[in-house]
């Protein structure tokens, strides 16, 4: 491991070239402090045709927009993006520019050489003298480094960038044999942007109403049994569902086998109350989750490969009983869009949406039926993020629809007191209020593709008009 304290010196030592593929992880989220300085220097050095593979792109990653404007980016492959880069691509992207993958799909593509990374820049909150790293310690602690693990293992060159260099790390998340270079900077991130601290259970009455119905649905499906597994993410409604499930588990003395995905203080609380055996944490959403990784031996940081790589037969989500997910749009075939709005603005991406929906025994979409005076149910979603064949239930404040493919679930719910109707009926309930807005059609040029976790292209992205 070669050690540097100057970014200029490091870049001088690296075999940079036109057409190289660079990767970054997004665990420092909007507080990331390495992507911008590195890409700004690479820009200044004159390299072009750069392929970028960050696991996600947040609004603060403005250097990517600068490179795009200078036409130095050959392609971007990522799992989630919003902010200025997303807006720029939606207006000016080229046909080959953007590939949206899933978290599991990214791990698969890196491991299988489909995304062959030349240099992985790994923001590492703590690195020790042996070159081992951890996300648990240091001023830029972010917890799990799950989305960086495949980059570290498979990139041709691996570089740790840290602001906390120590003698030794107990139980490192990444071991020293992987690393080629170490860059020590004054700071790799802004703690305020790393953990948002905004993961809270919704109190919005509509959200509460939806969550109550979703929890009842899970109860009626008889999923909450000893040893069950669950994933809910960090959305306010999802967390409210988790809270209802927690109460049910307490009332009935039920202990779950595992919770997976992004972990919050609410999941930690349930672990420490003895309501769940293990947390499989690919990403910490708040400070309590980071602290828990240090103190709880049954809270495991896992890689994206172990979490969701579809070609990993031991992936965690394969054993997932139920996952709660959101939707920007859903259509009559249950296809879900969390990638674009109806104006083609890129507002997110799959992350683990398609991965978990595909693998979980039951995938449940929770969303208000009426959003900003329009129906969340469309005849056809603007962009398919998750194929309808993987989506089982839609829970709204005005009723629940079950995918007709899931005859088993429909049969199980035949005596349920929940208001279960067809998705067409739900759409009619929405349009009774909203009328039938004219749905947009793709007229802008193609700017990219949505790739499902197995590498299949399931939709195209179009420019804003």
């Amino acid at each position, binding site marked *: 491991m070669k050690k540097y304290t100057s970014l200029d010196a490091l870049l001088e030592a690296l075999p940079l070239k036109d057409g190289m593929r660079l990767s970054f992880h997004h665990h420092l989220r909007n507080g990331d402090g390495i992507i911008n300085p590195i890409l700004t220097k690479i820009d200044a050095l004159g390299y072009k045709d750069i392929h970028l593979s960050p696991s996600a792109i947040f609004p603060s990653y403005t250097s990517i927009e600068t490179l795009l404007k200078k036409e130095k980016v050959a392609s971007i492959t990522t799992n989630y993006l919003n902010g200025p880069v997303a807006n720029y691509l939606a207006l000016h992207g080229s046909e080959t520019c953007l590939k949206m993958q899933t978290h599991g799909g990214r791990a698969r593509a890196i491991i299988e050489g489909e995304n062959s990374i030349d240099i992985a820049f790994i923001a590492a909150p703590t690195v020790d003298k042996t070159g081992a790293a951890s996300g648990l310690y240091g001023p830029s602690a972010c917890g799990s480094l799950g989305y960086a693990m495949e980059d570290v293992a498979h990139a041709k060159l691996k570089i740790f960038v840290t602001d906390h260099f120590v003698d030794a790390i107990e139980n490192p998340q990444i071991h020293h044999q992987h690393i080629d270079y170490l860059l020590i900077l004054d700071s790799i991130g802004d703690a305020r942007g790393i953990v948002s601290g905004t993961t809270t259970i919704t*109190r919005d*009455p*509509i959200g*509460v*109403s939806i969550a109550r119905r979703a929890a009842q649905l899970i109860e009626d499906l008889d999923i909450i049994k000893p040893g069950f597994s669950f994933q809910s993410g960090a959305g306010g409604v999802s967390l409210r569902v988790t809270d209802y499930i927690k109460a049910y588990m307490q009332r009935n003395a039920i202990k779950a086998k595992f919770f997976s995905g992004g972990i919050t203080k609410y999941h930690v609380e349930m672990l420490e109350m003895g309501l769940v055996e293990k947390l499989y944490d690919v990403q910490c959403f708040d400070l309590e989750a980071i602290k828990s990784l240090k103190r709880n031996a049954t809270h495991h940081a896992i890689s994206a490969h172990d979490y969701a790589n579809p070609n990993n037969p031991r992936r965690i989500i394969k054993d997932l009983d139920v996952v709660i997910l959101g939707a920007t749009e859903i259509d009559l075939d249950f296809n879900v869009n969390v990638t674009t709005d109806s104006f083609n603005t890129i507002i997110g991406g799959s992350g683990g949406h398609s991965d978990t929906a595909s693998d979980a025994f039951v995938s449940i979409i929770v969303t208000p039926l*009426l959003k900003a005076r329009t129906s969340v149910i469309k005849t056809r979603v603007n962009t398919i993020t998750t194929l309808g064949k993987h989506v089982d239930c839609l829970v709204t404040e*005005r009723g629940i629809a079950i995918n007709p493919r899931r005859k088993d679930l429909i049969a199980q719910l035949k005596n349920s*007191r929940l208001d279960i109707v067809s998705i067409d009926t739900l759409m009619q309930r929405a349009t*009774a209020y909203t009328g039938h807005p004219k749905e947009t059609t793709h007229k802008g040029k193609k700017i990219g593709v949505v790739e499902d976790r197995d590498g299949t292209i399931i939709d195209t992205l179009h420019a804003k008009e």
Partner: protein
Amino acid sequence: MSRSYLFIPGDVPRMLQNLDVFDADAVIIDFEDSVADHNKDEARQLTAAFLKRYTFHRPKLYIRINSTDDLAHCKKDLASIKDLPIAGIVFPKMNVERLKILESLWAKPIDILGILETPDVFFEVLSLAKNPHVKGFLLGAEDLTKALNIDRSQDGKELLFARSQMIFAAASTNIEAIDTPFTDVLNEAGLIEDIKQATALGCTAKASIHPNHVAFINNAFTPSQEAIKASKRIIAKSEQTQSMRFSLDGKMIDKPVIERARKLLKRAKDYGVL
């Protein structure tokens, strides 16, 4: 019979639009305290337009009009609701005198849930309960405690007389006795305790000012499965023995107990838990 009565402001489109998604058995669209003076016309127009366009089988709909003390607004309220598909009105500061004024103002009689929120009314409740248009009482603890110059406490002991007086009068003519809303919106433990007091004393329902309270109220006023099971056994034994007086599990069962069991099973059926 309704378990929960949810107040929503009449001038907020989002709340009106969603009035049927909070699982309240009844919704009270408010023209009074939650609507500022300069928005009262808007509340009347918005509510009228909404209810003329959309039909609701559930929840039952009521409108809280302004008190006859505010005669101009009260008259406008009555004029604006006369053709609306509502179950009745909620009448603030009801007492015998104000009820007479109201009856002199309306074009045609309408069912009334009267809010008991002034000290004097608790000495008139029996007379009010006998009025054929009065279908229930709703305790208004905020205004009442303000008039008494006392604070509301967690255990609600200051409301014991008012609650009891309301419940006894309502029971005498078999009309609704609706408990006051719990106003500490985020205090779920306090809400549960408050509901327990209402159910223990004999309230038939409870009002709320926040949609998130409705589920707690519905749950508390719905017969439990244990109670349903016990009632079923009482009715079964009564039918089996053809008797109105018998022993079950060492307890004497007689006519009032059997009738109470029948009522409980009817409520359970109405609320869909039977």
